[in-house]
Structures are given as structure tokens and as C-alpha cells.
């Protein structure tokens, strides 16, 4: 498998009132093409900052970062932000088409792609609605469609389901996997939820509390397509959950 993202000794520090705050420190990681990664860690461990550095929204303080860009005609990455990241002044349709419009994709092609993802995310009845008219779950469906429609090589997701209620979260996790399994982009997904990480990912990177370092890396060896209910019943899921929680618990308490 080809390496997609190679991180070497990456660190980031901020200055807050003359004090140096280390967001994350000495991260070394290789992410292969088509893998689904979850970064899990206690609040304030710098996982969001790490993601923003990977997405080129912030610059690291030291270390190096290599991301392979295979097709220069496609965007390298698209980010799905937490919430309130849709443009309130654009309709659902225009939000989803935003990335494509910026790249001057031909109009009929935009139409085709956007309509395709609107159908896949079940937004057909809401194309002309504005974000404030939608529920939280619907808004995140728009965000997912917006990112997939942009057709990037890598998807970064910053706790996209954190503000949803549990029932909607489960449904959106399933929908996300369905869409993802049909095109297998490289994904880095940030979450607090161990459940979510196990259900979604191939690899889980556990981070220590501040300053964020890699604590351990787990593989989730469950074939796809995955069935959430079956997975939850399995001993494997529970064992992995317990292992991760016991490790994470110390970090949460330490902070």
C-alpha cells in the first residue's frame, strides 16, 4: 500500500500570554492510502490542531510533513468541520457545490455530482433550504455531501458528529461508512468517542493529554462493509473498547 501521509517529528506550540503551550509534540506517523484513521484523545490534547496542520490551515512549529498529491486536478483534502461551518447565506445545494464552483468545474458536471450526493445523503427535499432551517443532523449531512462532492484525495473530519444526539449520530455514522466504502478515500477523523472510533476506523491513534503525543496505535480488524449491531455484540469490540478506555482513562484523569 502506498503511503499517503508521512509525519516526521511534527510539533506545534502556541504562545499564550508569554507562556509556551505545546499543542502536540513529536508526532511520527504513516497513513496509507485508503485507510480510515481516528485520532482519539482527551480534550485539549491537540488533536484538532494536528488535523488543522495536516489540512494546511495552520503551520507546524517543527518537524516535517509529506502528503502525496496523486492527481493535481483534484483537491488534496477537504475538511468536515464541527458545526456551523456551512455558509448561512447559501442554500443546501450551493453549499454542496461550493468546492466544485471554486475549481470552475463545468456547470453540468457540478449539477450531476451535487445531485448525486444529495440523493446519497437523503437531502432531496432540502436542496433550496438554508442551513438554519435544518436540524443538526441534516446540517452535518450537508457538510458530508459538501466534502465528498468536492472529491478530494483525503477527508479530514473534526468531530463532525459531536453535537448530534446519539440516535442521529449512529445513523450518520452508518451513512458516512456507506458513502466512504464506495470510494475509499483516505480519512482522518477526530473524535472523543471510543465507540465511534472502533466502528468507523481501520486504525486508531490514541493521544496523551497535553502535550499531545502518540500513546498507542490500534488496528481494528473487522472486515467491511461493517454492521454496527453485529459489531457491538462481538467480544472483539468489547475487548478493544475496554483496552482503549483503560489507557485513555489515565490520560483524562491526568489532565
Amino acid at each position, binding site marked *: 500500500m502506498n503511503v499517503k501521509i508521512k509525519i516526521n517529528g511534527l510539533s506545534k506550540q502556541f504562545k499564550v500570554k508569554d507562556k509556551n503551550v505545546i499543542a502536540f509534540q513529536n508526532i511520527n506517523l504513516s497513513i496509507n492510502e485508503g485507510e480510515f484513521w481516528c485520532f482519539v484523545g482527551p480534550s485539549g490534547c491537540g488533536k484538532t490542531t494536528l488535523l488543522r496542520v495536516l489540512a494546511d*490551515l495552520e503551520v507546524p512549529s517543527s518537524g516535517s510533513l509529506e502528503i502525496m498529491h496523486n492527481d493535481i486536478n483534484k483537491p488534496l483534502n477537504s475538511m468536515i468541520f464541527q458545526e456551523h461551518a456551512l455558509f448561512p*447565506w447559501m442554500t443546501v445545494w450551493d453549499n454542496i457545490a461550493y468546492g466544485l464552483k471554486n475549481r470552475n468545474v463545468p456547470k453540468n458536471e457540478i449539477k450531476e455530482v451535487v445531485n448525486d450526493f444529495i440523493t446519497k445523503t437523503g437531502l432531496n427535499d432540502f436542496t433550496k433550504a438554508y442551513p438554519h432551517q435544518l436540524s443538526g443532523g441534516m446540517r452535518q449531512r450537508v457538510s458530508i455531501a459538501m466534502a465528498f462532492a468536492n472529491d478530494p484525495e483525503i477527508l479530514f473530519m473534526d468531530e463532525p458528529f459531536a453535537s448530534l444526539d446519539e440516535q442521529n449520530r449512529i445513523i450518520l455514522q452508518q451513512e458516512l461508512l456507506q458513502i466512504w466504502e464506495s470510494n475509499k478515500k483516505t480519512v482522518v477523523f477526530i473524535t472523543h468517542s471510543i465507540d465511534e472510533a472502533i466502528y468507523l476506523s481501520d486504525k486508531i491513534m490514541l493521544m496523551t493529554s497535553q502535550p499531545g503525543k502518540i500513546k498507542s496505535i490500534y488496528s481494528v480488524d473487522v472486515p467491511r462493509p461493517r454492521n454496527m449491531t453485529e459489531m457491538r455484540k462481538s467480544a472483539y469490540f468489547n475487548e478493544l473498547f475496554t483496552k482503549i478506555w483503560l489507557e485513555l482513562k489515565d490520560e483524562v484523569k491526568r489532565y
Partner: protein
Amino acid sequence: MQTVDKKILKIETRTIENNNKRYIDSRNSILTVLSPLAILIVWELIVKFGMLDSRFFPAPTKIIVTMFDMIKSGVLLTDLKVSLIRILGGFLLGAIPGLIIGLTMGLFPIVKIIMDPIVNATYPIPKLAIMPLIMILFGLTEFEKMVVIALGTVFLVLMNTVAGVVNLDKIYMDVAKNYGASKKGYYLTVALPGALPMIFTGLKLGMGMALLLIVASEMNGASQGIGYRIWASYSIFNIPEMFVCFIIMSLLGYLFTAFLDKVERIIIPWKQV
């Protein structure tokens, strides 16, 4: 064994009365009409009974009669037309540069750094204090009156536009960058629409200021206009005519606000009410 002693202490009954939304709505709309009407009736009565000096507070019926006289003689409509042109001309003369300068300041930090001290130094100068200077510069012309109004409008539109662009949530910048927006694309599809609600706040405040300044600017060197009429009526002690002008001003304010509200709803359909 336990015995549970159950006693009914109180039965709460909630009768649903007046809970009908339609009832409340119609009651409220009746009340909105009734309250000013009540004041007018009381006003009329206490003037009629001589408890209020009718020289200073002419009875509402007297004001209405005066208004019809003014309409018949054509004075009122001419005044209205002249003032409207001045207000609208002055408003546009202030709002358009305010919008353009405000957007540039909001989008380009260097422009804001250069302009901020100039804006901050000139804004607090009362517009009425500069009026004599404007009269010297532009003479007692229509344009001079528009400039006075424009000066009041420009700052309000400008400062609100800057605030609208600068205070735009940072996440929109992240999304725009991440989704490959060009600089121009960012200005047109993010910064401008994002600032629109604040721009409209500025326009509404500017319109209010324009109504305020029209009266002042028509005080000198005018022979027509609602503001002029107020001063003219004052000098010949024609109080009912003054009151007619007050009503016209209040009506203008109401209509302009309603108009801007309507435009706002069309241009900003996504605004949460």
C-alpha cells in the same frame, strides 16, 4: 406490611382559556391600533375642555383640517417632494461611499490601519458643527443639503460595514480556504454576503440620521421642504402646520424603515428572524 395513606391534597385544574393563538393575535392587533387612538381622543378632549393650551397643542381634528388645507394648496406635496429628493440624494451620497470604503477597510487590513485614525477623528465632530463650513463650500444649494445628510449617513454605513466584515466568524475563512476559494471568490461569496446583515443595520441607522439632518439642513437657505416648513411655521407661530410636518416626518420614518425591512428580507432570505 406497609400501609400507604393516600390523600388528595389538591387537584390542579387548568382550564385552557384565552389560549387560542388567533384570539391573542387579533386582540394584540386591536390593541396596537387602540393605544395611539386613545391618546388622540384624550388629547382632543382635554384641549376641548381647555385643560391644554390649544395654541401650543392644537386638537388632533384641527391638525387634520390643517393638513387637508396644506394638501389642497399644494404646499405639502411640494415640500414633501423637495425633502424626499434631498433625503434620498443625501442618503445615497453617503451610503454608497460608506459601503465601498467600509468593505475595502474590512477586507484589507492595511487600508483599515490607514483609515481608522481618520474615521475615528472625524466621526465625533457633530455634523451640525460642520454645517457652516459646508454652506461656505457648496453655497446654499440642493447639493449642500445633500452633503449634510451624506455626512451623517456615511459614518454609520461605513462603521457597520467594517464591523460586519471584520467580525465574520473565522470558520467561514477556514472553509473558504479549505475548499479552494480564490481571493476574489472569498470577497464575493463569503465576506460580502456575510457582512450584509450588519450593512443593513448601518443603512437603517443612516436613514434615521438622514431624517434627523434634513430638518437641520433646511433651516438655512431653503424655501421649500418639510424641514423648512417647520421653521417657517414656527416663525409665524402657525403651530398646527408644525404638527402636520411632525406627522409627515414620523410617516416618512415609518415608510423608510418598512421599505428597508422589505428590501432586507429580499436580499437576505437566509437571515434568522
